[in-house]
Every structure is written in structure tokens, then in C-alpha cells.
């Protein structure tokens, strides 16, 4: 018993690895949200008129909306006037340092293991690093440019490729979509933009690293990914935040357009600060992610490993309008302590012979609540649509909850839709078997959980898979009692 306690204490001390904050000169605008603030953000970013109009329209619509409450979540009341909507850590006081990255910032990203210096980037991944509201640096831009691939921050894209941005921004997630989408459309700061032209196979993984640093701010990034005919791209996303005892809001939008025969792989390892073991603080992760498979035989695959955030409320979705398009969703969601997750996916079949697969693994421990919520909709036009969903939940501890809310709306007689779900705890037999062979219980749990999540982890790109595996271990340590 005492041994167990000492282990728990050890882990409690270990806590969140990325919880440091960076002392960097950051320009933060006044707290509060109004048309003036939106104009100010737009002005600071030097945006064209049409984008300001887009923001204002979204803001006015947002004002008419009510905050949703249907999630299986206990949400703290968010005071939207008590958040600063723009924080820029790259702005140094003197004009002298302009254009160069603050060495403190460099150190931060080094510490997080994100190589911003290209000579260090042996991993061969192009990175767009976003801290608070601003993209700090995008690597490998020139090399990608040679192939015609555009990879830059969305602010730059607005300036340099306004036509492309104008065409696709809001075309997958319109600002009227939901409350947080409207908010994001009004105040979005930075994010990544990628355009893969026809027939190009992106030679390296594109990746965005999001970091919230400043206190009292929210992050509202916007990612737009367009994959033209016959192109391919694999995109990674990672996130961390410092430990703060307040809740920080993260309301992002990710839009993906996939055209004929194109393929996009989108992987997320979400490790926002989950709050402390008492449930204090942590990031509220309220994100709208959606891909539109417009072309025939296009393919989109979402893979997510969710270990962080006090509250995760997101449904990376796919609209399968191209005939023969395929979508996949692989998810591992881990919740511990007082974390809450209500996550899953939506697969909307519109085109003929479309196919989707959903594999979701939930792991709940401590006093956390973990829900899978998913919709499979087959429109009457979607002849021969096929879906397979499987959601498993693993319970570690008697005070946590695991829930499954699958929705299936079938409007076509030729569709085949299957769903199955199981909920159980770690089998005593498996544990006993491991113990018997000299594997201590803690390690055995790790082993079993990793085996359980393997289906999803296998879908992640190599370097992410290693990180995710480690994260799973850290998130769950000390949960057995």
C-alpha cells in the first residue's frame, strides 16, 4: 500500500512536462470583444477589406447565437469579455530586432523539441510554429515552393495568395456552422495554410505546432488545407500550453478540401495543459475540424491522440461528396483526473460508393468523463455507402465514466452501416498473466493500454507514434489503485 502511495506521489510531482512558460515580450491587446477589437486585429495583421467584412459578419452572427450546452460536459462559464483575443510574442519593443526571432522564443521551441533551424531539422518535417496569435516561423518554405507547394501561415497566405484563401476560407466550415466556429471566424489569428497543386506528392510531412504562452489569452487559430487533384499530403499537428490555474480557451477551425484522387492524412497529438490533479485550470479545447472530399476517389484520414485539455469537445468530420471517396477516423482519447472529453466524428455520405471507417478508443481514469459521440449519415443519394464503426472504452478506476453516443441516420436502402461498442476494465486475466511473468502491475497496465490503442497508434507517422506512446504512459501513470 505504501509503495503504491509513493508511486502516486512521484507521478503527481512529475505532472505536465510542457507546463513551463516563456518570459518573452508579448504584445497583448486589451481584454474584451467588440467590433473595434476585430478591426484592431485585422489592422494589426494588415488584412484586406474583404477579410475584415468576413470577420465582422461572423461576429454579428455570433452575437445572435447561444452557447451550446448539449455536450456531456460540465463547462465552466466562459466570460468572452475577459479574454484577450490577440497576443503577439514576436513584436519586440525596439525596431532594431524586427524580423528576427527572439532567442527566448527559439529556446522555447527547442525545449519543446520543435526544430526551427533548418540545419537541425533532420527529421525532414516542415514546421509552422504558432505561438499565441502569431506564426513564429515556417521552415522549408522555399524547398516546398520548388514543387509548387504553398506552406505558410494563414496571415501570409492572405497577403500573398488572396485568391486561393478567398475561394476556400469558410467553404467547409461556414461561420454559421456553430457558436465556436462563428467566434473563431470573427477573431481568428494565425494558423497554417497549405496548398498542394495538382499531381504533386508532398515530399515531406507538413506540421504545425501550436503553443499558448501568454496569460489571459485564448488561441483562435485557423488552418486551411487544400489538396488539388491527384495530390498527396500528410499533415501533423501538435499542441502544448503552460500550466496556468485559469482556463484558457482554444477555439480553432481546421478546414480541409480534398479534390479528385487526392489524399490527405491529418494527424493530431493534442497535449494541451489538462489542468492539475484537482481539476483546476487547463485548456478548453473547442475545435471545429472538417474535411470535404469533393473529388471522386479522394481520401481523407483523421488520426488523433487526445491526452491533454481540461475539456475536449470536437468532432473531426468528413463530408464524402465525391463518388468513391473514402474517409477514416482513428482516435485515442485519454482522460485522467478531472478531464472531460466529448469527442468523435461525423461521416456524412453523399456520393455514391463512399466508404468510411471509425475506430475510436477511449481510456478514462481518475475522476474523468470520456464520451464518444459520432454521427454516420447516409443521404438518399449515397448508393452503396459503407460504414464500419467500432468504439471501445476502457475504464481504469471506479470514479470515472465512459460513454458512447453513436447516431446513425440512414436514408438509403443500399447502405451498409455497422456499429459496435464495448466497455470494460482491464482484464484481470491479462494482468495476472503479466504479473506471473514478473512484469509489475504498473508496467503491465502500460503494456495492455498500449496494445489496446495500437490500432490507432499504428496509423500515426513514425515520430508522432513514438511521442503518442510516451504520452499515453505519462497520462495514465498512477491511475491504478
Amino acid at each position, binding site marked *: 500500500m505504501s509503495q503504491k502511495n509513493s508511486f502516486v506521489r512521484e507521478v503527481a510531482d512529475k505532472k505536465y512536462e510542457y507546463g513551463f512558460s516563456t518570459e518573452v515580450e508579448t504584445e497583448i491587446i486589451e481584454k474584451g470583444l467588440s467590433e473595434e477589437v476585430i478591426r484592431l486585429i485585422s489592422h494589426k495583421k494588415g488584412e484586406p477589406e474583404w477579410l475584415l467584412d468576413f470577420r465582422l459578419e461572423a461576429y454579428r452572427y455570433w452575437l445572435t447565437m447561444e452557447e451550446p450546452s448539449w455536450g456531456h460536459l460540465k463547462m465552466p462559464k466562459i466570460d468572452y469579455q475577459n479574454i484577450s483575443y490577440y497576443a503577439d510574442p514576436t513584436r519586440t519593443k525596439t525596431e532594431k530586432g524586427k524580423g528576427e526571432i527572439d532567442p527566448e522564443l527559439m529556446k522555447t521551441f527547442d525545449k519543446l523539441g520543435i526544430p526551427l533551424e533548418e540545419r537541425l531539422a533532420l527529421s525532414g518535417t516542415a514546421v509552422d510554429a504558432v505561438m499565441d496569435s502569431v506564426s513564429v516561423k515556417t521552415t522549408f518554405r522555399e524547398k516546398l515552393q520548388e514543387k509548387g507547394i504553398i506552406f505558410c501561415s494563414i496571415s501570409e497566405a492572405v497577403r500573398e495568395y488572396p485568391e486561393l484563401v478567398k475561394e476556400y476560407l469558410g467553404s467547409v466550415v461556414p461561420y454559421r456552422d456553430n457558436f465556436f466556429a462563428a467566434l473563431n471566424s470573427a477573431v481568428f489569428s494565425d494558423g497554417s495554410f497549405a496548398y498542394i497543386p495538382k499531381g504533386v506528392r508532398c515530399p515531406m510531412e507538413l506540421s504545425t505546432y501550436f503553443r499558448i504562452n501568454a496569460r489571459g489569452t485564448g488561441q483562435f487559430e485557423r488552418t486551411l488545407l487544400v489538396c488539388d487533384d491527384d495530390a498527396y499530403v500528410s499533415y501533423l499537428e501538435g499542441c502544448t500550453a503552460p500550466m496556468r490555474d485559469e482556463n484558457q480557451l482554444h477555439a480553432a477551425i481546421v478546414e480541409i478540401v480534398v479534390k479528385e484522387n487526392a489524399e490527405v492524412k491529418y494527424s493530431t497529438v493534442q497535449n494541451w495543459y489538462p489542468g492539475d490533479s484537482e481539476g483546476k485550470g487547463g485548456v478548453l479545447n473547442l475545435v471545429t475540424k472538417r474535411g470535404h472530399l469533393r473529388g471522386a476517389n479522394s481520401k481523407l484520414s483523421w488520426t488523433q491522440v487526445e491526452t491533454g485539455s481540461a475539456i475536449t469537445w470536437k468532432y473531426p468530420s468528413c463530408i464524402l461528396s465525391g463518388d468513391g471517396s473514402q474517409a477514416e477516423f482513428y482516435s485515442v482519447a485519454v482522460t485522467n483526473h478531472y478531464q472531460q472529453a466529448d469527442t468523435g466524428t461525423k461521416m456524412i455520405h453523399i456520393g455514391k460508393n463512399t466508404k468510411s471507417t471509425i475506430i475510436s478508443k477511449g481510456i478514462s481514469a481518475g475522476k474523468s468523463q470520456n464520451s464518444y459521440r459520432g454521427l454516420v449519415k447516409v443521404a438518399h443519394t449515397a448508393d452503396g455507402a459503407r460504414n464500419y464503426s467500432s468504439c471501445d472504452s476502457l475504464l481504469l478506476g471506479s470514479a470515472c465514466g465512459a460513454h*458512447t*453516443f453513436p447516431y446513425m*441516420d*440512414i436514408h*438509403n436502402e443500399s447502405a451498409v*452501416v455497422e456499429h459496435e461498442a464495448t466497455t470494460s476494465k482491464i482484464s484481470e486475466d491479462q494482468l495476472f498473466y503479466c504479473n506471473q511473468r514478473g512484469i509489475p502491475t504498473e508496467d503491465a497496465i502500460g503494456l495492455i493500454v498500449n496494445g489496446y490503442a495500437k490500432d490507432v497508434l499504428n496509423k500515426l507517422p513514425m515520430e508522432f507514434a513514438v511521442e503518442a506512446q510516451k504520452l499515453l504512459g505519462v497520462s495514465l501513470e498512477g491511475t491504478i489503485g
Partner: protein
Amino acid sequence: MNAEKQYIDLFAECRTMIDGHSVLALNARRDEAFHAFQEIGFPSKKVERYKYTDVSALFLPDYGLNINRLDIPVNPYDAFRCDVPNLSTSLYFVVNDRFYDKVLPKVSLPQGVVVTSFQKAAEVYPHLLEKYYGQLADAKTDAINALNTMLAQDGLFIYVPKGVVVERPLQIVNILRADVDLMVNRRVLIVLEESAQMKCLFCDHSIDDVNFMATQVCEVFVGENAHLELYELEETHVKTHRVANMYVRQSAYSTTTMDSITLHNGYTRNQTDVMLDGEGCETNMYGCVIADKQQHVENNTLIDHRVSHCISNECYKYVLDGSSIGAFAGRVLVREGAQKTVSQETNANLCATRSARMYTQPMLEIYADDVKCSHGSTVGQINDAALFYMRQRGIPEEEARLLLKFAFVSDVIASIPMDALRDRLHYLVEKRFRGELSKCEGCKLCK
């Protein structure tokens, strides 16, 4: 005009009349229900539990109500024969929302067993009625319960005392009979005391070609170690709307088996909430829906595991033809501390035409860790390979399709332990698939 207004007005106007033709136990709860109904109104489709059925639209038309309790001029024993005739049952009728007690079957029930109307029960067993009536169906949170509690004037009361085994199944035939569009508010109260056993079959029929709106609230108490089998068979017509709420509370070591079979209907919403209140309970719920034309059938279930060591099984099958709409929402809730729960939920659906629609939502909500819960749900169509195999062997396509559909639902029917009922249902389902109307076979009323 919103749908609630006419009922609020009606209640305010006719309150004395409603009370006058009813009994104290029912009258005592009307005020509370009325206030709740005024406050909550009919649920919109935005309410999660009602998202598949637009209830307020159902209640919008102007239906007549028999508040004065005028007599029904027929003797159902002479005029009507139910579809399940070969079964040796104790047969009772509920005509519209009134228990028919002018003529009663010549069967002797075991000592102490009561099958009667609320009117009678209020005279003879007022303490029982008061103790159990309205205990499970919460009028404050559910508009259907509130409306029913407001307007119900009579009901069916079944009571089985401690240790009594009712060998012969009870058969309750609900007949809807009217010359004008009619709304009925049925109320059922079933109480099984400790170690009692009973089998009960409810058959729903509507025999006049007018619009019917039937609400039904059924409260069932299953005592410790008691055993209840409850079957519901709906064979009404397209002009019948049925909104039924059933609440079951099971005490320790009790077993219930519930079957809900919808063969013919118009618009049906069955909501069944089972509360497992004592350790070692077992609940089996089966459902079978065969729908075509514009029919709409929703089964909405909740199994609430409140304590440890309980078992629940659920299996619902739908076969949808024409432009019918099927919906299934099954929620299994395992509360904190309900360890060693075993729960299984299956929903399989066959969509036979393009315009048929199926919504399914099997939910698990689990707050205990030592449990084994699973659910599975499928929507698909007849297997081409199987069809080909049969045709290859000389079975005509139509016949082959029929056989496959029949096989699809047969496991629900096979789960019925009563042989005679099972055989009869096999026959009825087959007939249903062949498109033959069976309801007129033995009935003199609608000829």
C-alpha cells in the same frame, strides 16, 4: 395555434367534469401535472429524447375526448376477436380508455389477484392505488406523462399479491372505437408483490376508420424475486397515433421480459424506462417492428442500472418498407457503484426501399469500472449472396426475400417463452410480410 393551448383550455374549462367522472387518487395529482404541462409544454425535436418524433404535431389536430364517460354501445366479447385466439388466456378488454367490466371472462384468478378498473380499485383497494399511482411516471419532467395525468379518468389496475403465481396469461385487448376523431388517455398500473409471477399480453387494435390519438402511461412495480413477462402487440391502422410511456421498477432478484411488436400502425412512439433498483435483477427487452407506407415507429428505451450485479439484454429489429421511418434510441445507464453489471444491446435494421429511413442511437453511459457492456447496431439490406443461393435452388425471388426478412426478425420472436404466442406471432409476421391484413379475420365490427 400551438398544440398545448387546446389542452390547457380544455382542462381549465372541464376540470369539474373530469374530476366528477374519476377517482380521488387520480384527481389528487392533476393540479401538479397541469402546472408542469403549462410550464414545459410538448417537447420539440431539439429535446434529445424526442428528436425522432415531432410530438407537438401529433397533438395539434382537434380530437374529441370522452370526458363525460359515455357508454360504449358494444360488447367486445361478442364482437371482437383478437389475433391471438388460440392462446388460453384470461381475456379482458379496454375499450378506448375504459376497462370493460360489464361482462367479465368466466375464469377464476388465483386468490387475491386483482384485474379491475381504477374506479373499482378506488372503492375496494384505495390504499394500493394511492401507494403506487403516479410514483414512477414523473409528470414534472415529461409532457406526455403530464398530459396523461391531467386527463386520464380511469385505468387498468393489475395486482398480484405476495407469492402468487398466475399460471394462465392475462390478455388485455385495447380497442379503439369511435365515430369521430378521438383522443384517449390510457393508464395502466401493474403491481407484482414479492415472489409473484405473471404473464401478460397487451394487444392494440383500432377498429374504426377515424383518427385516433392514444396516450398511454404504464407503471409497473416488480417486487423482490418476482417474475413478469409483458408482451405488447400493436396492430392498429395508419390513422392511429400512439404515444406510450412505460416505467418499470424492479426490486432485487426480479426478472422481467418485455416484448414490443409493432405490425400495423400509423405513428408510434414507445418509451420504456426500466429502473433496476435491487441487486441481481435481470431485464430482457425485445422488439420487432415491421413497417411500410408512411408508418413511423420509434422505440426509446432506458435501462438504469442503479445497483450492482444486474443483467440487461436488449434486442430490437426493424424491417422498413415503403416510406416508413424507424427510430431506435436505447440508452443504458450504469450508475456509480453498479459494479458487475452485464449489459448487451443490439439493434439490427433492414431497409428494403430507398425511401425508408432509419435512425438509430444505441447509447452507453457508464460510471462504474467493473462492468461488461456492449452494444452493436447495423443497418443494411437483404444479402445478395443469400438471395442468389435461394433462387439458384428454385425459390422465386419474392418468396426468397420474404424468407430472408422473416429469418431476420425470427430471433426476436423466438425469444418469446410462451409457445402458443410464439407460433401465432410467427404466423402473423409471415402474413404481414405477405401484405395480407389479418386483423379482420375474426372481427365483426369493421365488416
